């Protein structure tokens, strides 16, 4: 009797309260805090988790609904990554950031079939930027092909727009990831008349003597790098050893963290890399993170990674996910979200300079405008440069565009071939 009375009171209270209990918004984090790439995985995972903790602690979640980060350790291993996806997708997961090109390739068909969006931010399959073909895959704000073109634009800027006859070498991880920019660089070589030399490095890249002897003999004007993990550190050290001018050595955004330059010490001074987000910790959001997350003991890590390149990238990824969730909530007039609604939110995502300022991230990234057709975003990037004496990165130019006249046809060609191979009809019509 007493129990049924209690139940009735509870139901009545819930009805008087008016609003039903809301479920969490679940954001899985396929992190890699262990294994050979842990040094890169930890700051990203910390940044991703800390931003959602900030939203929960400071704002009570996203429009009042708490965000829940579901972390699963992949060790940067594709098989484990897929296992993580399978084991977490039933928890109401709204969006996956696979954090590896290998895992992304595996999740593209799986997540599409399950109707869960994948955000491979600045990695994965470049032609997934074509939303007409890849309904559930997003790679905004930029792709590898954008990165290659933005680097070439920077070289053009340095040479008064003329790089005819210049020698550019690409040192790349001999994998699908490392080979991504080759086609773009070849097309740009035809357009601008530079000579491209391809220099592959086998995984893991701990030994690169042959490659750097070749560079020393051929004396390219610029060396570009598509590396990851230990390959980056060894390449930068070897470049310093052969006294290659560091300001002419430019990496992709995955060859651009403090981890990559610190082992070379002063030798790394002047090294450059392309980036799609801001550097350093001079943004108001970091003050909030310190106050609401670190100082209250709720940080994912020790709080010592704030402002590092990969922490910032993880935070940026979380911000983009949270803003897409907000957009989806407004679009569907609901606070609880399904993965399908989240996908709609991602396709309608718009972040302008004013919104970035509101978020405590003024000028942290380019304006973003995603659409059904364009899942690759603006494709803008800037160049960051390492100052070894004070151990800081600085943006040396503004976020600039890639050569769309070259990139867009390549994306179209590759995505249409994928559609034909897999019988995927075009959407967004």
């Amino acid at each position, binding site marked *: 009797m007493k129990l049924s009375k209690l139940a009735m009171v509870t139901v009545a209270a819930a009805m008087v309260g008016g609003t039903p209990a809301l479920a969490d918004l679940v954001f899985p984090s396929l992190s890699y805090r262990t294994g050979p790439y842990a*040094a890169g995985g930890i700051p990203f995972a910390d940044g991703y988790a800390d931003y959602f903790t900030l939203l929960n602690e400071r704002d009570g979640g996203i429009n009042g609904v708490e965000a829940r980060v579901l972390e699963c350790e992949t060790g940067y291993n594709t098989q484990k990554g897929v296992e993580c996806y399978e084991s977490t997708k039933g928890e109401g997961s709204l969006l996956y950031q696979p954090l590896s090109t290998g895992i992304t390739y595996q999740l593209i068909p799986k997540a599409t079939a399950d109707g869960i969006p994948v955000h491979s931010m600045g990695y994965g399959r470049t032609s997934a930027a074509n939303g007409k073909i890849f309904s559930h895959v997003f790679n905004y704000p930029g792709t590898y092909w954008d990165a290659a073109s933005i680097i070439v634009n920077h070289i053009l800027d340095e040479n008064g727009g003329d790089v005819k006859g210049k020698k550019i070498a690409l040192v790349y991880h001999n994998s699908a990831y490392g080979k991504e920019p080759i086609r773009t660089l070849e097309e740009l070589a035809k357009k601008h008349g530079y000579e491209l030399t391809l220099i592959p490095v086998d995984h893991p890249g701990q030994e690169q003597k042959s490659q750097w*002897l070749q560079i020393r003999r051929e004396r390219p004007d610029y060396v570009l790098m598509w590396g990851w993990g230990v390959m980056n550190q060894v390449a930068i*050290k070897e470049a310093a050893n052969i006294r290659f001018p560091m300001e002419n050595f430019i990496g992709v955004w995955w060859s651009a963290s403090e981890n990559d330059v610190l082992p070379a010490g002063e030798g790394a001074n002047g090294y450059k890399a392309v980036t799609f987000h801001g550097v350093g910790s001079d943004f108001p959001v970091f003050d909030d993170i310190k106050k609401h997350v670190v100082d209250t003991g709720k940080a994912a890590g*020790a709080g010592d990674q704030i402002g590092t390149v990969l922490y910032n990238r993880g935070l940026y990824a979380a911000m983009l996910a949270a803003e897409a969730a907000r957009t989806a909530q407004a679009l569907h007039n609901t606070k609880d979200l399904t993965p399908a609604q989240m996908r709609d939110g991602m396709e309608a995502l718009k972040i302008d300079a004013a919104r970035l300022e509101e978020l405590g991230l003024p000028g942290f990234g380019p304006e973003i405008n995603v659409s059904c057709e364009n899942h690759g975003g603006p494709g803008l990037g800037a160049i960051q440069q390492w100052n070894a004496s004070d151990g800081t990165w600085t943006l040396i130019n503004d976020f600039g565009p890639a050569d769309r006249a070259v990139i867009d046809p390549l994306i179209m060609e590759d995505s249409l071939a994928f559609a034909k191979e897999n019988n995927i009809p075009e959407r967004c019509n």
Partner: protein
Amino acid sequence: MSPDFLNFIETVLNGLMTGVMYSLVALGFVLIFKASGIFNFAQGVMALFAALTLVGLQTGQVPFAHLINAVLGTDVHHWGPGLPTVLAILVTMLVMIALAFLIEKVVLKHLVNQEPIILFMATIGLAYFLEGTGDLMWGADVKALDVGLPSGGSFWWEDVTRNWAPAGSDYFGMYIDTLDVSAAIIAVVLVVALTLFSQYTATGRALRAVADDHQAALSVGISLRSIWVIVWSIAGFVALVAGIMWGAKSGVQFSLSLIALKALPVLILGGFTSIPGAIVGGLIIGVGEKLAEAYVGPLVGGAVENWFAYMVALAFLLFRPQGLYGEKIIERI
């Protein structure tokens, strides 16, 4: 001399230097295999663990700081400015000796007379354990390692060799990394020391006796367990040297354990039981892969050196399964 020929010599020289670096890793495998018949899967991780410990001591890091802070709610990271390099190396060596004791006490003692595959599996477990412990103790960030060894291209050698090419040719001297030269000198000293130790000391002779025949060694009163501790301590020392050399090149990070992959073709080539074999095998693999990358690589798109090393090893397996200096094992059924 023509620039092409000078480039060839440069490739060979750099191959030899790289080979020495491979030999440093292979030596640790050989020492343990020779004395106990165990293929130590954890050798690469031991190099990582030793290098992590060395940098941690040099920089004054508090071991297990993250764990301590998480459990006790403290905020400790460093205990001071750190130890001077020489002292840090000595303390790291003590840690490696303590590790050898622990390995013998906790793992090997319980596996006496077990099949080699069981011992091999135990070393796989040991590798995971050490990797996790290293992470907990010192963190997973990439650490710069500086023990005061010179590094970078040698200006002197460049200047000397620049004049070897005909006047007016576009040749700017031969490249050699001074860190590789240091590694070569250290490897020579290490091999000489190991040889003298095994030839002229009682412990060394006991090691050789155990390597020849466990049972016979036991029957004349040699303690197998003491010998294992000594061997694992020496292998720990070799791992420390390899960790320093490779860590100075790439920074100390968890990929360092993958250097073991570079030692495998060296071991197949040189033989699992021969110290000179590890050196000669390393030199052959180093020179072979550098020549292959320089002269075969451009014909097939590059990045051939990794598989070339294994191809050479495979060819040796076909014609000389015991390797160049390994013992030929004949078993009668």
